[in-house]
């Protein structure tokens, strides 16, 4: 429906229409009106959703009287062994502004369920968790009660399925708390019920301990420390529309600066307490890196949406190649701006799009580009920083960079942009190869930095971040090798010749604590598949027979992934690619999944179950 307000924003795509890709045109013909709002970029400030409010509790007075017994195993009600932190997150229908020139849009979103009276949640994203790693204390973790206040499955009309299962992406947690996409019966006959509907809730326990803690007796692999996690809906067959409607948020993990005095291995831990989230290092941790923190540590999720003239979300339910939106959003706002001081910033990029792959540049208004210093992937800090001209970012990948805005003095520089130059016209993937993506001379500016005054900057980026050893030759030599071949036959996804998507039984059954080499093979021609393996980070050993990129040699933006430098939970398979990774699942047995993170591929069964046995 047109109203007077929208007429101001009405326009045709004009010259831009020549650039419109075929799927966009096809999507456009599907809605009642093919007219789309034309939006002026950089009118809105970048939203930064705050942390949720923890629910305080006294010994022996749990905040939830009906706490799930499985989650309760991670709680010491007396608080003697540790105090778990509780949160409540509500999935709800709400109305948000995606752009100053758009009417409000109805979305599905997570909000802080423990907001102080009088406060409302106006963000398109869920709250940004910022949680310390629990080191060796399994009772000092985090419990999140997720409540479903979406419409009922029966009432809902439109795309998406209002049934919930929440995945903490990059987290190391029990199978029960991993957001398995559907309810199943386990091999021993017990029911594994993990999805919930309107009026129901589910308690997720995230101990945030180091992998290996439970299996090798207090000697965790101290380097397995993630930094930028995110949580999102993970329901079977409908993750793409549900995440597109807004069910996503950040979950950032940092090292505790102070060791637990009760931990017998505390002394050995100190050297690993590096990413403490405090650039001033007030706690005096001897190995703290002092990376930019607080207001200078900015998570950025890149997403795409298509809006109708009344601000409504438009989604093409029949496009299963992968949905590309017409508008580019950062943190739930169309092409926003961020005022920045002339000092160092830590920027955490997450590709939260359904099917768009990005190649990001830091550019000035004339298109001249400047290098960025990459410090992390989804597996946490690199062993050393790598200066990069640009970087590729597949769906669900995270890349953290530090940009020093003091290098851009007044008055020559007043603004800089994050620009995506990767050519991609269809959901199946961008142009070119993984090793050499095809770029446009200029791309869309996703985010504008408005440079302000210079300020004191106590932060640092040392030359060594979190060093760790690559998997040893000995361990590799004894590791069983599995091939997982991703194919497309008769328009269907198959893994190892079996039509994928059967979550009633495991496709592979790795043993707890035994490392394996997985050969991920993409035989399909033009298709790109970012493969996400739940449960543990993978070590990338080989890509197309060669050592993976480690930042030396020509840098065309390809993922920095070589073992010893980086750890990954999402591995981008370009067309006709073969990547060898090492995985070792620790602590938790049970059913998990690996899948393509092109959300439309994931929903159409490009997923398989693995059981850690």
């Amino acid at each position, binding site marked *: *429906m047109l*109203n*007077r307000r929208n007429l101001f924003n009405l326009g045709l795509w004009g010259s831009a229409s020549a650039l419109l890709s075929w799927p966009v045109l096809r999507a456009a013909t*599907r*809605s*009642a009106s093919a007219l789309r709002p034309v939006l002026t970029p950089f009118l809105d400030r970048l939203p930064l959703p705050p942390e949720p409010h923890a629910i305080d509790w006294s010994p022996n007075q749990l905040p939830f009287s009906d706490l799930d017994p499985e989650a309760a195993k991670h709680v010491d009600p007396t608080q003697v062994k540790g105090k778990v932190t509780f949160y409540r997150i509500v999935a709800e*229908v*709400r*109305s948000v502004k995606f752009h100053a020139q758009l*009417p*409000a*849009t*109805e*979305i599905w979103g997570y909000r802080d369920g423990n907001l102080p009276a009088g406060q*409302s949640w*106006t963000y398109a994203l869920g709250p940004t968790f910022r949680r310390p790693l629990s080191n060796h204390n399994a009772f000092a973790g985090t419990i999140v009660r997720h409540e479903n206040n979406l419409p009922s*499955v*029966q009432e*809902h*009309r*439109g*795309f*998406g*399925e209002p049934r919930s299962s929440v995945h903490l992406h990059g987290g190391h947690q029990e199978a029960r708390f991993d957001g398995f996409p559907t309810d199943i019966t386990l091999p021993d006959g017990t029911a594994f019920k993990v999805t919930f509907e309107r009026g129901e809730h589910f308690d997720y326990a995230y101990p945030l301990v180091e992998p290996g803690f439970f299996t090798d007796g207090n000697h965790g692999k101290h380097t397995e420390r993630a930094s930028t996690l995110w949580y999102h809906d993970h329901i079977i*067959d*409908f993750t793409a529309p549900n995440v597109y*409607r807004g069910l996503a948020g950040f979950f950032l993990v940092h090292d505790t600066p102070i060791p637990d005095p009760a931990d017998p291995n505390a002394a050995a831990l100190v050297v690993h307490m590096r990413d403490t989230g405090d650039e001033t290092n007030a706690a005096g941790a001897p190995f703290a890196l002092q990376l930019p923190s607080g207001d200078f540590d900015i998570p950025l999720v890149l997403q795409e949406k298509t809006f*109708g003239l*009344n*601000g*409504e*979300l*438009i*989604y093409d*339910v*029949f*496009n*299963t*190649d992968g949905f590309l939106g017409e508008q580019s959003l950062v943190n739930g706002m169309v092409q926003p701006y961020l005022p920045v001081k002339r000092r160092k910033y830590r920027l955490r990029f997450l590709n939260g799009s359904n099917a768009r792959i990005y190649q990001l540049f830091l550019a000035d208004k004339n298109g001249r580009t400047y290098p960025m210093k990459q410090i992390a992937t989804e597996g946490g800090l690199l062993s050393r920083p790598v200066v990069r001209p640009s970087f590729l970012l597949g769906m669900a990948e995270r890349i953290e960079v530090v940009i020093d805005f003091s290098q851009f003095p007044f008055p020559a520089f007043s603004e800089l942009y994050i620009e995506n130059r990767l050519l991609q016209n*269809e959901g*199946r993937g961008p142009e070119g190869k993984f090793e050499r993506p095809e770029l446009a001379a200029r791309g869309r500016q996703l985010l504008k930095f408005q440079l302000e005054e210079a300020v004191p900057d106590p932060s640092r980026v040392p030359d060594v971040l979190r060093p760790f050893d690559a998997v040893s030759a000995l361990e590799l030599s004894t590791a069983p090798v599995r091939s997982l071949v991703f194919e497309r*036959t*008769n*328009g*269907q996804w198959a893994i190892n010749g079996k*039509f*994928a*998507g*059967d979550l*009633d039984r495991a496709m592979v059954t790795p043993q707890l604590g035994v490392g394996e080499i997985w050969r991920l093979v993409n035989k399909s021609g033009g298709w790109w598949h970012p493969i996400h393996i739940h449960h543990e980070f993978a070590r990338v050993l080989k890509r197309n027979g060669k050592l993976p990129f480690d930042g030396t040699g020509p840098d065309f933006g390809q993922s920095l992934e070589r073992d010893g430098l980086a750890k990954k939970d999402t591995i981008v398979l370009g067309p006709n690619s073969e990547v060898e990774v090492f995985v070792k699942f620790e602590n938790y047995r049970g059913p998990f999944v690996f899948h393509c993170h092109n959300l439309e591929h994931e*929903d*159409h*069964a490009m997923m398989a179950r693995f059981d850690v046995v």
Partner: protein
Amino acid sequence: MLRRRRFAAAVVLAPWALHEPALAAPSALPPGRADFPNVLLLNQDGRAIHFYDDLIRGDHTVAINFIYAQCGDICPMTMANLAKVQELLGDRLGREVRLASISIDPVRDSPAVLKGYAERFDVRAGWQFLTGRPNDIDLIRRTLGVYDRDPAKDRDKSQHTGMLVYGNQARGRWSRVSALADPRRIVASITRWT
């Protein structure tokens, strides 16, 4: 109009009420008549079936796959699998769930040919076999997104989609499942809104 009046009232009475959630437009309406071709098809009994009006429209699940009688590749396996689905559906078939197998070789697949083909799988009422004009069937495939972008591959019938496209028009939910998946997985998918 109601919406505009409410909007105006909100401005007059309380400017802060602009954030009232009721003002947001609901997300795109479920695909309806304008989004589907309402082409004329014939079923295995020679009865006229309008694709949208008679098959899609309404609060039931419709599950569609594409076949042809001479198909020796995936069709026999697919059809045998869907026959198991038919069995599992029991009396929900035809009421809550409609199955449709549409020929991609409509010139050869006359209603009589399809009737003979359907009999091989003990097809019951509620599972229709449809043929029609080639262009119309192409339009249906394109609308449902089940075709290959590569025109040569798309013409190659042996590579036609093995997906079962299913959805509920009134509820606006659409998805796909492999027609070769475990029949229980297929039934769980196509009965999730009943």
